[in-house]
């Protein structure tokens, strides 16, 4: 497994786990119109960054020569294809969010819905990269 594929796995698993916990806690807290908890989101982002940095450094220490190697043409192609899929998902989701936004939902729902869309697009990107690496290209 290449360093780039491992990075995609780190991104997929860390985002799924940490944002999964964040959205679970938001849903568990119930609707609180007008009370978007920035501290909760900030803690989530910090936890995600720390976890990704620690895991990436650990992988790089294990195989430093692979970590130092620049992306080659196949890595770039895989990244572009994954980005295209994620963008399509993002664009569709934003269009749906705009439609449902017309029904005047509370701000806390709007903010978390947009965050959910962004996280989902990022997870789709990592998943597409992994699928292509597993297939060969």
């Amino acid at each position, binding site marked *: 497994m290449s360093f780039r594929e491992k990075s995609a796995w780190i991104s997929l698993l860390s985002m799924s786990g940490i944002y999964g916990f964040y959205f679970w806690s938001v849903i568990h807290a119930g609707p609180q119109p007008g009370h978007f908890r920035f501290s909760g989101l900030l803690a989530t982002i910090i936890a995600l960054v720390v976890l990704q940095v620690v895991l990436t450094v650990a992988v790089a220490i294990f195989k430093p020569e692979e970590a130092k190697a620049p992306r080659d*043409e196949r890595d770039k192609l895989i990244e572009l294809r994954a980005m295209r899929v994620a963008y399509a998902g993002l664009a569709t989701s934003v269009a749906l969010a705009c439609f449902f936004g017309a029904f005047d939902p509370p701000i806390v729902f709007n903010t978390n819905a947009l965050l959910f869309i962004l996280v989902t697009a990022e997870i789709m990107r990592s998943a597409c990269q992994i699928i292509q690496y597993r297939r*060969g290209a």
Partner: protein
Amino acid sequence: MGAIRNEIRRLRFEHGEMTQQELADRINLTRQTVNAIEQGKYSPSLEAAFRISAVFGKPLESVFHYSHDE
């Protein structure tokens, strides 16, 4: 649909049992990409194909073949 096939695996062994990593280092690709090319899962760019041919000192058509699937 056609498929691009190649003789890289045979040529590596004919050139002192060159490893995939050694070939990858000489053409600035990763070992995983060389492996994907060898297995026919990834078609390299024209530039990469020329670099591979140059390593083995062979013309492009001796390393890569395009076959039409009926």
